[in-house]
C-alpha cells in the first residue's frame, strides 16, 4: 500500500493557555480520497485544515503531507475558504490567475490556463466582471477555479458552501465531484451539513469536542459518479440518518 498523502501521528494543538483544541489525532488520508470532517462547533475541524496547510504548527506530534513538512508541500496544495476571499479590485480572470501569478507564471500561459478553468466552471462570460457584480454562488465558482488553477494534488475546503442557498450548494457539490473525477486530486472537506458530507465523501470523519478528537471514521460506499438523483434514494437517506446518529453521539459525549 502507498504511504498516505496526509499523515498525522499523535497531533495535538492548543492556542495559548486555553487548553487543547485537538488532542492525540492519528489521521491518515490516502491519495484520491474525498474525506469530510464533521463535528460539533469547537471540535477543531478548521484547525485540522490549517495544520495540513502548514498555516499553523502543531503543538505536539508530527504531520506529513506527501511525505514532507506541510509548509514544504504547499506547492501542490490549494485552500478554499468559507468566504470566496476574492480580491475585489481584480476582475474575475485576474482572481483566477492569482496563484499562477504569485508562482511566477507568465501572462500568456496564465491567460490560457484561466480561460480553460473559467470554461470548466461555466464562468467564461463573466471573465471581466468584478467580484461585487457576481452572486454568492458565482463567487464561490471563481474561488474554486482559482484553487484548481495551480493543478493541486490536494484540495482543502473549509465550509465553502455554508453561505449559499440549497440549490446552489447542491449544484456546486455535483460540480465539485465532476472536477475531482476529471483531475484526480485528493479532497479534505469541512462542513456542518451531514447531507453534504454523505453526498461528497468516500469517507467521513466524525470529530468529538473538548478536546477535539476523532470520534468515528465512517466509509461511504456509494459508487461514483454521484448525481443529484442520488439524494432521492432510500440508501442515501439511510446513510444520512446513520451519520446523523453518530454525530449526535459525538455531541452527547
Amino acid at each position, binding site marked *: 500500500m502507498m504511504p498516505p498523502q496526509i499523515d498525522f501521528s499523535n497531533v495535538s494543538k492548543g492556542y495559548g493557555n486555553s487548553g487543547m483544541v485537538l488532542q492525540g489525532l492519528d489521521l491518515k488520508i490516502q491519495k484520491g480520497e474525498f474525506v469530510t470532517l464533521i463535528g460539533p462547533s469547537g471540535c477543531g475541524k478548521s484547525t485540522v485544515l490549517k495544520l495540513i*496547510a502548514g498555516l499553523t504548527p502543531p503543538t505536539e506530534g508530527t504531520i506529513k503531507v506527501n511525505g514532507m513538512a506541510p509548509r514544504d508541500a504547499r506547492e501542490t496544495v490549494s*485552500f478554499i475558504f*468559507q468566504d470566496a*476571499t476574492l*480580491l*475585489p479590485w481584480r476582475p474575475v480572470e485576474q482572481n483566477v490567475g492569482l*496563484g499562477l501569478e*504569485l508562482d511566477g507564471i507568465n501572462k500568456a500561459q496564465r491567460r490560457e490556463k484561466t480561460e480553460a478553468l473559467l470554461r470548466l466552471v461555466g464562468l467564461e462570460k463573466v471573465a471581466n466582471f*468584478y467580484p461585487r457584480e457576481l452572486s454568492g454562488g458565482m463567487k464561490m465558482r471563481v474561488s474554486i477555479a482559482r484553487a484548481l488553477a495551480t493543478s493541486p494534488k490536494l484540495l482543502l475546503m473549509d465550509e465553502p458552501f455554508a453561505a449559499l442557498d440549497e440549490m446552489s450548494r447542491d449544484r456546486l457539490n455535483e460540480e465539485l465531484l465532476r472536477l475531482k473525477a476529471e483531475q484526480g486530486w485528493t479532497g479534505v472537506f469541512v462542513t456542518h451539513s451531514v447531507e453534504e458530507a454523505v453526498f461528497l465523501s468516500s469517507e467521513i470523519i466524525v470529530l468529538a469536542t473538548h478536546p477535539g478528537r476523532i470520534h468515528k471514521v465512517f466509509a461511504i460506499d456509494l459508487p461514483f459518479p454521484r448525481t443529484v438523483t442520488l439524494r432521492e434514494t432510500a440508501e442515501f437517506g439511510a446513510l444520512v440518518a446513520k451519520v446523523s446518529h453518530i454525530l449526535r453521539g459525538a455531541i452527547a459525549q
Partner: protein
Amino acid sequence: MKQRLITVANATAVFAGLLLIWQLVLWVFHVPPYMLPSPVAVSRVAINRSSSLLASLSITALESAGGLIASIIVGVVIALVFAQFRWVRRTLYPYTILLQTVPIVAVAPLILMWIGGGTPAVAFIAFVISLAPIIANTTQGLISVEENLVHLFLMHNASPAQILFKLRLPYAVPSLFVGIRIASGIAVIGAITGELYAGSSRVGAGGLGYSILYASSQLQTDYLFALVAAATVLGFAFFFLVMFFEWYFLHRWHESARAPETA
C-alpha cells in the same frame, strides 16, 4: 436625475436666501461698509481686483497641493513601514498622533524661522498638518486585511513584498482616500495659516492668508470678504477633486464608490 436637480435647486435657494438676509441686515441696522460690506460690493471688488485675487488664490492652491501631494507620498511610505514592522508601529505610532494634536498656529512661526519664508515653507506647513490623517487611515487599511486573504497568499508561498504590494496596498486604497479627503481640507487651512506668518517679499504677491492680513490692516473689508470666499472655494475645489479621483479609482470595484444615483 430629477432628484439631483431638486437638491441643486434647494442648495441654490438657501444660498440666495442667505445673501438676502445679509443685505437686509445691512439695510435695517445701517452697518457701515468697513464693518460689513454688501454682497454687491464684495462681488464688485472681486471682479475689479480679479487678477490679484486669482494670483493669491493660485499661490495658496500651489502651496496646499504641494503639501498635500508630499503628505500622500510620505504618509503612504510611513504607513507601509508601519504595516510591515509591528515594533516600528508600536514605537512610532503615538508620535503621529502628536503630529495631529500639536497646534499648527503655534508651530508655524517656528518652521518659518527654521527654513525661511516663501512658498516652500508654507507648503511644508500644509504638509505637516495633513500628514497625520494620511498615515493613520492608510496604516489602518493596510493592517486590517482579512486573515484568510493573507492565508491565501501564504498558500502560494508569497513573499512579504508580494503580500504588501499585491494584497495590503490595494486593500488599503479606500482607506487612503478617506485620509486624503480629510487631509485635503486641512492642507488648505495649513497653507493659509502658514501665510499669515510667512508674509511676502512684495506687496500683492502673497497667497490668500497674507492678502487677508493685508486687506484687514487696510480696512479693505470688501476685498477681505472676497478673499475669504476664494479660500472657501479653494477648500471646496480640493474636496471635490479628491472625490473625483476616489470615484475614478474605486467605482468599478468598491462598494462605497458606486454611482451617486444609488446613494
